[in-house]
Structure formats: C-alpha cells, structure tokens
C-alpha cells in the first residue's frame, strides 16, 4: 500500500477521488480510475480502501474524511449502488458472486485442479463508465485543469482476478489462463441494458443499428460492445453531456447473473478394437430413422466410457472402417474417442484397464478392445493419416466355379512375394455416392489354401483403399484383373475378415 500512497498523492488523483466519492462510486472502481494495476490491493476490504482514498485526497488539504465515506461503509443493502460496476467488483469476493459458481461446480462434481474464467459484463457498464469519465473531465475543466483518463482500467480485469482468487480459496483450485476447464458466467443489468441507444440520438457518434431478419424475426444488429466503444470515442464530451446522463443516474438494482456454464475441453482416449460379429456396424447405422444394425463398436465401448468420464457426449473415430458383415480380427483397428465435456477428465491407466475389462466382459461376443489409453490431441493426426496410407491384411473365404486343385493354389501363390497391380473402377455398390474413376491399386501379396471342392481361403495384403470384394468377383468386369480373371473362372467371396491395419497406435504403446 505504501507505493500507492507515494505515487498517487497529487492534485490529479485527489480530484478524481473527490469526484467519484461525490457520486458514491465504490472504492475498487475508484482504484480502477486511478489506474492502479496492482490487483492485490483491490482484495483489501472496502474500509481499508476508503481509508487509503481519504488519505490521498486529504494530504494536501485538511485531514478530513470525505462525507460519502460513512454511507459507503454501511451495509450492502443500505449502501448506494455503484454506477460504474453495479456493485459487481464491490461484491467480487463475496458469497453473492461465488454462490452460483460453487453450486454449479459441486452439482457437476468436476474433478479438476485448475480453472479459467470467461466473463461477460452487463453492457450498461460501458456507457456508465464513459459517463463518469466525461463527468470527471468536466470537473477538471471547471477548475481549469486537464486530465488524461487513458489509464483507467477496464472493470473486467480486476474483477476477474478478484473472483478468481475467491474461487481458488473456496474450491481449492488454481486459476490458470491455460486451463482446459472454463467457467463462463454472464452478468446482466436489465435497467441499463438499452443505455447505449442514446448513441442513436448523438449524430457525432455515427451509430447506426441495422434491422435484419433472423429466423423470421426482426433483430437489431450493430450494437456489439466494440461498436459501442468505437462510437463513444467519436463523441465530444459536450455532445454527450447534452444528451446522455452525466453523471449516470442512481441505480436501484444490483447486477444479476445468468446460470454459469462449466465446461471442460475435450479429452481423447485411444485404443484398438476387434469386431467379432458380422452383424454390428462400426458406428450407429441408422437410415431414415431405422436401425439397420442392432448395435455398434462405437456404442458398445462409448456408453461405458461415458459413465467413466461422466461426459456430455462422445465421438468415435477409427482408422478406416470395415463393412458390417466383415470382422476385424488380428491386433484390431486403431480408434480414438473424443470425450466431450468430461466431469472427470483424466482416468489413470488402472482405471482405463478396468474400463476396458468391463467393456470386454459385457460385449464378449461382439467386440474386444485393447491398449486403451489416454492420448493427446496432437496424436490424432496419426489416425487420420493412417486411414489413407496404411496397408491392410485380409483373410477371405472364396468360392470358385472350378474345383480347387494344387495348380490353382500355385497360380495364386505365385503372387505371394510378387506385387499385382489392378485397375479398379468405382464399385457399383458405392457408385451412388462416389464419382466414377479408375484407380490403380497394389496387391502386395496373396496366399491361398485349398479347402474342399470349390472353396479356398486367401490372405491378401493390399494398398489402402483397395476394394477386396470387387477384386474377387470382378464387379461385372469393372475391376481388372479380378481373381476370376486370373483363374479363368467365376469367383465369389463368402466371408471377409480384416487381419491387420498396419499402424502403430496408440503412440505411447510399447
């Protein structure tokens, strides 16, 4: 406090303090107008702050207390409402301000260590603060003095610090600007909400509202905070005094707040899934409101994760996908979940292992997941790129119109270590949504094993994006050569399984 005393004792500051005490602004607002940036000072009680202010104003004059002091120190209900903050900063560290936040935080039971604040102040504050500045300048002019008020501190800054400190104390959290957990709260003050409309009556403000139609309703636009501030800058004090209220009218109501919104940014959990059923889809398969597969990999695991993370919602993303009637075996397919607004944003590896076990036990015959682990947003690109660039290994049950002989098996197996390039026209089965194109695709390796009569199994390793089913039956000649072409007969695929998606995932998995 010593430095405040030393630096702020002069005629300019005394005049500001006197003028603002005359109109019964709160001590913290007067500190703002003095340009005091050491926000720790603001945390002191109103009584202490007023004592300092009285000392600033009295050092050059007689040592007397400003007449407003006592009324400003009366109980909150009896005290005049500050016109430059509607008592917001005056109450920033009281239960009135804290209560809605604490209540909401506790009812959601967020498990976090830090928070950040996003504050929206009543728009009436802008006009009233400007009005007090104009009023102060007028007082200076009356005494043949000038004053520079460009150092006045916006209400939001110190308010945010004060509120932040009280939340820290009350909820045992750290206020951090990098926190992924954001408490958003909007304050309003009904009576002064439309105060900026006086600008439409001041020609020098060049303030124009536009009427636009939104969803069939007429809405006024052009009154954003930035527009109001820019317009005020153009208005000479004399214009403002003749039309606006200077000083601001006394207020009869304090600030109010909308329900606070508490939100944690998304977290990500990755793993690999095995799909054992030919009846479930990767994500919910619903067309025209009708469910075409009874459940999905996404739902089977997501619903359990929803409980664990206590999140609002989740999104499932995998490195590519298989058709419903195709199983995903082997080491599984890489995936991640985007967990939206988790109340519990971090699960320990032990908790994740337990969740994985629970998923695998409930869905035993449908899916199995493994390597479930927390991943970072930066890791996600691996999945997105993997979709396009990775090799896939398949196993297929095939019927051919010839009886399977060792010669036929040999014919296929000559491609075991030899690449085969095929030309695929967009398959008819996807042509309704994908453009007609011819794509060359590489089959890196093929290996066949004879079963009885017309049946054989094959393992194929292919370039990403190869349509396997079409390679087998030929798609009416649109894939050339097809397996049928190579063997000079008809061929069909009866079952298909993906054995491997060649992608290292999750990244920190050994």
């Amino acid at each position, binding site marked *: 406090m010593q430095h405040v005393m030393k630096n702020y004792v002069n005629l300019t500051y005394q005049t500001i303090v006197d003028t603002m005490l005359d109109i019964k602004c709160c001590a913290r607002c007067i500190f703002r107008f003095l340009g005091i940036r050491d926000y720790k000072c603001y945390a002191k009680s109103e009584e202490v702050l007023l004592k300092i202010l009285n000392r600033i104003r009295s050092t050059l004059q007689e040592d007397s207390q400003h007449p407003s002091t006592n009324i400003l120190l009366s109980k909150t209900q009896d005290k005049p409402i500050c016109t430059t903050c509607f008592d917001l900063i005056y109450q920033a560290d009281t239960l009135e301000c804290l209560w809605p936040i604490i209540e909401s935080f506790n009812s959601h039971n967020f498990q976090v260590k830090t928070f950040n604040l996003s504050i929206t102040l009543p728009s009436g504050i802008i006009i009233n603060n400007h009005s007090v500045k104009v009023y102060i300048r007028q007082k200076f002019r009356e005494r043949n003095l000038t004053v520079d008020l460009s150092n006045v501190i916006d209400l939001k800054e110190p308010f945010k610090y004060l509120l932040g400190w009280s939340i820290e104390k009350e909820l045992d959290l750290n206020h951090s600007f990098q926190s992924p957990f954001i408490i958003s709260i909007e304050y309003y003050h009904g009576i002064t909400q439309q105060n900026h409309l006086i600008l439409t009556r001041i020609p020098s403000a060049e303030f124009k509202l536009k009427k636009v139609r939104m969803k069939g309703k007429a809405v006024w636009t052009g009154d954003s905070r930035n527009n109001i501030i820019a317009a005020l800058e153009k208005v000479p004090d004399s214009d403002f005094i003749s039309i606006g209220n200077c000083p601001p009218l006394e207020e009869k109501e304090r600030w109010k707040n909308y329900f606070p919104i508490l939100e944690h940014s998304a977290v990500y959990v990755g793993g690999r899934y*095995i799909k*054992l059923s030919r009846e479930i889809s990767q994500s919910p398969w619903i067309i025209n409101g009708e469910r075409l597969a009874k459940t999905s990999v996404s739902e089977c695991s997501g619903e359990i994760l929803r409980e664990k993370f206590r999140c609002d919602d989740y999104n499932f993303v995998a490195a590519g996908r298989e058709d419903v009637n195709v*199983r995903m*075996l*082997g080491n599984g397919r890489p995936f991640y979940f985007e967990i939206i607004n988790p109340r519990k944003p971090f699960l320990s590896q032990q908790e994740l292992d337990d969740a994985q076990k629970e998923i695998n036990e409930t869905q035993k015959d449908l899916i*199995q997941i493994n390597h479930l682990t927390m991943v970072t947003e930066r890791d996600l690109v691996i999945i997105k790129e993997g979709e396009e660039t990775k090799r896939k290994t398949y*196993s297929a*049950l095939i*019927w051919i*119109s010839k009886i399977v002989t060792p010669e036929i098996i040999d014919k296929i197996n000559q491609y075991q270590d030899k690449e085969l390039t095929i030309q695929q*026209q967009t398959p*008819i*089965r*996807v*042509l*309704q*949504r994908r*453009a*007609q194109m011819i794509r060359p695709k590489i089959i890196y390796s093929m290996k066949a094993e004879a*079963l*009885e*009569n*017309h*049946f054989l*199994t094959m*393992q194929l390793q292919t370039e990403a994006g190869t349509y396997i089913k079409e390679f087998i*039956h*030929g798609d*009416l*000649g649109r894939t*050339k050569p097809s397996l049928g072409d190579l063997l000079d*007969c*008809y061929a*069909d695929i*009866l*079952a298909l*399984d993906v*054995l491997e998606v060649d992608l290292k995932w999750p990244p920190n998995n050994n």
Partner: protein
Amino acid sequence: MNSESLISPKYDLSLYKKISEKYEKNSLAYLEQYYTKNFLIDSSENTTEDFYIYQAPNKLCVIGLAPTHPLLLQSQKVKSIKFDEKVSQSISKKRQIPLSAKSEICVITTEEGKNYSIKAGVVGWVIDFNIKLDVDMLQKKPFTDGYIAIIKPKQDDPRKALNLCINEGKYKEIRNL
C-alpha cells in the same frame, strides 16, 4: 475367440453348404448375392428384344441383353456399339433432366446392317456406360462384363422405378425357358 483364430480364422463350411449347391448348379448364381434380377420384355409380338435390369441394394440398375435377345439367340456378327452422344455428355453433370424409360441410350449395329436400339428401361440418369464393352464381350459374357449401362433411377421405391419390369420367374414363363 483365441489368439490363433484372430490371426488365421477358420471358416465353418457347413454354413455355406446351401450357397455352394446353388452356385454349382449355376456359375452365375453369385450375382443374386449382389442384385435382384428384373426383365424388360419386348412389347411387340414378333420380336424378343428383351433386356435384364439388375438392381443393387443402393438402387442403381445395370442394364444388358437378356438371354432371349436376338443378338444372343442368332449368330449375328456385331459391327458396332454406339452409346448415345448426348447421354454420354450428360454423365456426371449435375441437374440433368431424367431420361424416360423409352429414351434410346445405345444402338448396336450388325454386319448385315440391322440396328438394335437399347432403351433406358427405367426413368432416371445414366451414371456410367460400360466403357470397356466390345463386340466380343457383348455376346460372350452378356450377363457380367458385357452389361451396357448403369442407371440411377429417379424413383427410390423399386416398385415404382421398375414398374415396366417383370421378375425372373415371370420372364421364364413368358419366354418358355
């Protein structure tokens, strides 16, 4: 499922017995896995210029020559296959007026100079011609590689889209096959 069967899965062939029996009787039976077969019968009494229209689950229709089409019944040598130019140019262009079922999309000319007209058969848009189609394939593999065009019907409901067509049973009955 144990880890061995995750790497090299075994298939229970008893599940596929019925399908195998069907396939052994008819090598082309596999097409029924992917399409429902429909036929468009020649309406004039003296000719049998019939077509098949296969419809895929995504509603796309593949049109080609039915077994009773004169080009497949008689040993006529085909000289040329000409896809309609206007229709060709309309492919992959947006906002095209749909073709009527009677719109000609292709003309096949024999060595003897006889012309066979191929109609769309369904109201809709040609989204692809069989660009690989040649004279040989048309007659040797008419039901697979020798198809003529792929049409996207205007009507989503197959009963409405294929209202001029009959099913395979009816077709065989009419043509005494």
